């Protein structure tokens, strides 16, 4: 039955989008967690999505979406000259994470919109399934 596949597909999207929301929350929370060396500075994390092919048993071999992995942003950490800061290094610099707050906000809105859309998809599929089961009554 393809309608239960619809719910599976929407479910994979919900979990992928919630991982995206989680990484965004982590990035936002750590936007100000400065450190005294570049290596220890928090790096922004982003999930990599890919389409699931041939995984489930429906007509087109479609299975929704999955998170392939979470990659750390390669953007450079931002040094800030603050010699009076307790965590400053010998040169007087502290290092801010490479989190772009504007980008993360846009990501968050996009993820929550996609999440809502997929909730609606799952809901519609559920209604159609229930009506199908009531057929002939």
């Amino acid at each position: 039955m393809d309608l239960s596949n619809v719910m599976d597909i929407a479910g994979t999207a919900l979990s992928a989008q919630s991982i995206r929301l989680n990484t965004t929350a982590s990035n936002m929370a750590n936007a100000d967690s400065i450190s005294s060396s570049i290596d220890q500075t928090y790096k922004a994390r982003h999930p990599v999505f890919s389409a699931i092919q041939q995984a489930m048993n429906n007509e087109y071999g479609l299975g929704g979406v999955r998170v392939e992995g979470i990659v750390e942003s390669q953007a450079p950490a931002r040094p800030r000259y603050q010699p009076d800061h307790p965590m400053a290094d010998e040169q007087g610099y502290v290092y801010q994470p490479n989190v772009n707050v504007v980008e993360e906000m846009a990501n968050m809105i996009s993820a929550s919109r996609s999440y809502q859309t997929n909730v609606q998809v799952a809901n519609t599929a559920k209604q159609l399934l229930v009506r199908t089961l009531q057929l002939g009554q």
Partner: protein
Amino acid sequence: MGINFDKALGIHEQALTLQSRRTALLANNLANADTPGYKAQDIDFRQALQQASKGQSNFALTRTDARHLNGQSRYLSSEAQYRVPLQPDTGDGNTVDPAIEQAAFAQAAVQYQTSLQFLGGKFRSLMTAIRGE
């Protein structure tokens, strides 16, 4: 005299199956709205329904000998085609337009319910005929 369900139920049974497949396809498009490189797909419903009502299995190769392998592929359906995007370059190769997909999904859901209504009506009239009330 038996009741021939295929004749009694008409085209609605095939329409229902196709609509449910189409909702799965559109749900997959919506699920992959943020997947880089994903290409949105849809089916030509009229063509698919014509094929289904003729009893043609999609993408099956004609077997002229009993020893030929069955060439039907579940994953290479002839029905599913890639959508022509309104905005070809989105930066990451994704061609899903959520607005279009959502509208198409709503349309497929309504059409599914329509077919369901028709089928329900057929069943009710069969029941009336059986009871002879």
